[in-house]
């Protein structure tokens, strides 16, 4: 029998606990990367994930981490499928994910609302000021921009709306 794992089943819980390799303060569930988990009564599990950016190098690590964690949890056969459509958007980051990002000094993205290049008042995650400016559209990873706060003068990462 095949059951689709809703966020209460054990397979989902195990998969959802995998941290993002580049943003370890959040899990792949927080980021909305984990799409679906299907398990059967033979202890086989099929996981669907979606990449954030097409070239995100974390995707391969996430795939390996899922296989490792689910195998350790007793699943005998783990299949991880990469699904591209519909395309990932930062709007899928959960409220808990947004909170965790901000708590760790990464300004969370605003809602996309259909327009990608509309960036309004990004708040400094340290002092809370909205007087911040973009230093570089491309930061330490593809998904982040580098900004600096005009108030407290600290640089910080901003997860770009996508």
């Amino acid at each position, binding site marked *: 029998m095949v059951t689709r794992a809703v966020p209460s089943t054990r397979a989902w819980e195990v998969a959802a606990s995998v941290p993002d390799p580049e943003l370890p303060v959040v899990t792949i569930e927080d980021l909305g990367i984990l799409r679906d988990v299907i398990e059967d009564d033979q202890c086989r599990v099929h996981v669907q994930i979606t*990449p954030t*950016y*097409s*070239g*995100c*190098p974390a995707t391969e690590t996430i795939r390996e981490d899922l296989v490792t964690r689910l195998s350790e949890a007793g699943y005998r056969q783990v299949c991880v499928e990469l699904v*591209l*459509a*519909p*395309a*990932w*958007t930062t709007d899928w980051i959960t409220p808990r994910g947004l909170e965790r990002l901000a708590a760790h000094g990464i300004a969370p993205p605003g809602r996309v609302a259909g327009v*990608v*290049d509309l960036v309004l008042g990004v708040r400094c995650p340290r002092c809370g000021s909205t007087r911040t400016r973009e*230093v*570089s*559209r*491309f*930061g*330490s*990873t*593809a998904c982040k921009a*580098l900004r600096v706060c005009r108030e407290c003068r600290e640089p910080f990462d901003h997860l*770009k709306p*996508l």
Partner: protein
Amino acid sequence: MTTTLVPGSARALLALGDDALLASQRLGWWISRAPVLEEDVALANIGLDLLGQARGLLARAGELEGRGRDEDALAFWRDAPDFRHVCLVERDQRDFGTTMVRLLLLATWQRELYARLAASSEPGLAAVAGKAVKEVAYHVDHARAWVLRLGDGTEESHLRVQRALDAEWPWVSELFDGSWLDPEVVAAGVLPWPDELRPTVLGEVAAVLARATLRLPDGLADGLAPEPGGRLRGRHGEHTDELPGLLARMQQVARAHPGATW
């Protein structure tokens, strides 16, 4: 993934995958060489986006082709005449102005193309394009910001970016050339005719160049690019002398250690 196989689709996806792959490889040259650290990181990230798009497109091209070639086989085990990218992306670029002008041209075209391909009848292509269109929007922004800054900057930066534009311009028309494309692929809704993208793409480019105080190349104000006649045609496998060297570098590790993983 189930789909009706349209003959010529594999070749079309291969061409677009090659555009992204070779553009990515050229951008990689800037790593450790960009004028400032932030730009080093930016160009690396843009190249990474393009590489990811190339992987998706080539993987799907390989599936459609049905000859058992995956994205690695297509990237590393073809020789120059088998590549189908436009010559625009393969040429050497060691001047920052050249890189930014070329990125503006390529990314503006890709954004328009991917926006349409997100509704392609080929589901694999639609999926890659639906992601890629959002990524290249950031590339357009980045290139636009630099072209404005350099064009409307110092006398030296203006001169160099103008020279770069004049050198890149003759290679633009190939983006709109459909002579290589199987009409069935267009009829089936896999790809639009490349020529349909011309007015929008050239209009957007012209607007940026005008704001950057750059002299528009011949024909651009009328939405025209020079005819490709007499030029090398990358879509037909006719490339510049610069491609073999670029491929040698890109392919050397895979060919020296076939099947190696790390």
